[in-house]
């Protein structure tokens, strides 16, 4: 806001645009509503972690320390080796599968194969896991469990100690696997065809023949994988 004073805004359109894009109007009336939270109140809720490691708490852990914790608190959904139980998320492996497509194969998006930043792993476990007891883990436990999951993905050594100085430095294999949204990405016809359009209307799939998929039939779908995520 301080970049563009109100008088300058009238002079420089570019500056005005910057103001619109980045900051709220300056001369708003103080409504006198709300209170200034104490630093302790903010700190109690401000537990998120950024890719550069900002937000990582004091404490430390190793995969070795994390293994028993993981087996007790995580493995009943994610499997002893991060392979996933039932439809719960797979955490390990899946390397070199991201370009696979049904029906020849399927991509396995795991912490190791897909996640671009290690910070995300700490952040998520710290604020949202274990699923039935979120926010119950100490920083040491989160470091240790995170280390064990990274170890299952061959990204850290079993006895490597992780803390706020080195956790965010771990290089994730799919760090460069993402493209900023380029949509609209499908070619747009200038004038959509209205009459005698050259399309092949042969039916190549029928939902009525996918046994057990649609609720109302008490059957698990056979031979189809339609994983939505969790």
């Amino acid at each position, binding site marked *: 806001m301080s970049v563009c004073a109100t008088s300058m805004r009238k002079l420089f359109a570019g500056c005005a645009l910057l103001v619109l*894009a980045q900051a709220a109007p300056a001369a708003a009336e103080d409504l006198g509503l709300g209170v200034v939270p104490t630093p302790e109140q903010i700190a109690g809720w401000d537990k998120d972690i950024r890719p550069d490691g900002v937000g990582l708490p004091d404490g430390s852990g190793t995969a070795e320390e994390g293994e028993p914790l993981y087996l007790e608190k995580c493995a009943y959904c994610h499997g002893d080796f991060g392979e996933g139980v039932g439809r719960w998320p797979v955490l390990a492996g899946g390397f070199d599968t991201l370009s696979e497509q049904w029906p020849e194969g399927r991509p396995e998006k795991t912490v190791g194969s897909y996640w671009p930043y290690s910070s995300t792993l700490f952040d998520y476990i710290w604020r949202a896991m274990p699923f039935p*007891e979120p926010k119950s883990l100490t920083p040491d436990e989160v470091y240790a469990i995170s280390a064990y999951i990274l170890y299952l993905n061959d990204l850290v050594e079993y006895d490597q100690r992780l803390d706020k100085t080195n956790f965010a430095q771990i290089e994730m294999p799919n760090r460069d696997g993402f493209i900023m949204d380029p949509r609209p990405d499908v070619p747009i016809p200038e004038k959509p065809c209205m009459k005698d359009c050259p399309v092949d209307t042969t039916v190549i799939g029928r939902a009525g023949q996918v046994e057990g998929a649609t609720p109302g039939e008490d059957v698990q779908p056979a031979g189809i994988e339609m994983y939505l995520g969790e």
Partner: protein
Amino acid sequence: MSHERDPKRDGLAVARRRFLSAVAASGAAAGLTGLVRPAQAANPDNLPPNEPEWARVLGPGVDDRGYGLPSIYEKHVKRRWVPWLTASSESTVNFTPLQDLHGFVTPNGVCFERHHSGRAEIDPEDHRLIIHGLVDKPLMFTVEDLKRMPSESHFYFCECAANSGMEWRNAQLNGVQFTHGMVHCVHWTGVPLRVLFEQTGLKPNAKWVLAEGADGAAMTRSIPMEKALDDCLVAYAQNGEALRPEQGYPIRLVVPGFEANMWVKWLRRLEVGDQAWYHREETSKYTDLLPSGKAYIFSWVMEAKSVITFPCPEKPLNGPGYYSVRGLAWSGRGRITRVDVSFDGGRNWQTAKLQDPVYPKCLTRFEIPWRWNGERALLVSRAIDETGYVQPTMYELQKVRGVESVYHNNGQQVWEVKPSGEVENVRLRYVNA
């Protein structure tokens, strides 16, 4: 190292066991109601020339129901879920019954639910919204504070990025509730984020907002400041009453036109920063994997989409004759300007009538008359929005995105009407002949 666990070890193990057995039970409850209701035979005693039974009795008084409920004859109008789709009922989705709705407003009780850690039940007295980070003055608000501030009310659709996600590979679910029911549209009332940030002030490098929910999953998403100041709301009401708990009571974020995952429910914290947080829901989830192995990230906007809601697999035709074919269209980029409907799988198209009102980033109802001759037909709709964007066929979409991207499937939906009047979700080859 033994992997054996002693289930009696401590109280937490008991809680965990209870949780796991609840998961098992929910998995067993797979059988849901049939989709097509058989035509009910009327009771001739209630038809002319007889006086029906309700015309010969005294009904319940105004003290009978403090809060009204739908007719007992509308019990089939409800959210449904697909038990096999996900691991548990706490972290999954149910679907809006689009086949039973009229106009463009979704009734509060049937708006689809998507939770990541179950439904939070929050006492508004115990809820706070903290705004902090790159602001001049951090502030903490009660729900009552927010209700005293200048408000806005708008109709916006809210669509999960995974709506139609099960249809990428082929036609899979035989019902419009399941193929398109992760969308709803209500009248939101709340405080613009712009007004809140006027109160806190923003530092010059304030470029991103992290929104966090108060539920167990502590849902977080990074929202660009430009969008936050444009049209985002902290909403406390939907369709004229307080938000429903499953929609984020007491407050949720409304991010018009963007994927519903960003509309953080049970909102408790807005942190202003100079960069995105790249949290789980915006990296490992809600990114669109392509055949190249690369994935779109920050794919926020919901592109134009439409679907015919009558007829549909749940609402078959009852013999040849006149029908008003109806559907819904919407675009995250603005207003719907046109919807075309084809009765022959996309060879020939007619432009449907859009019902007033047509609002930006809002469901729009379209309708077209049809005299069905009783022969097989392939019904398709195609939406066009004010940017000139045309809803693609599944073939066109798959050519660019493959079939593994899960999210943002806005391809054209084809219904096959059979001579019997039954309707099936089908996939056409669609390669340009």
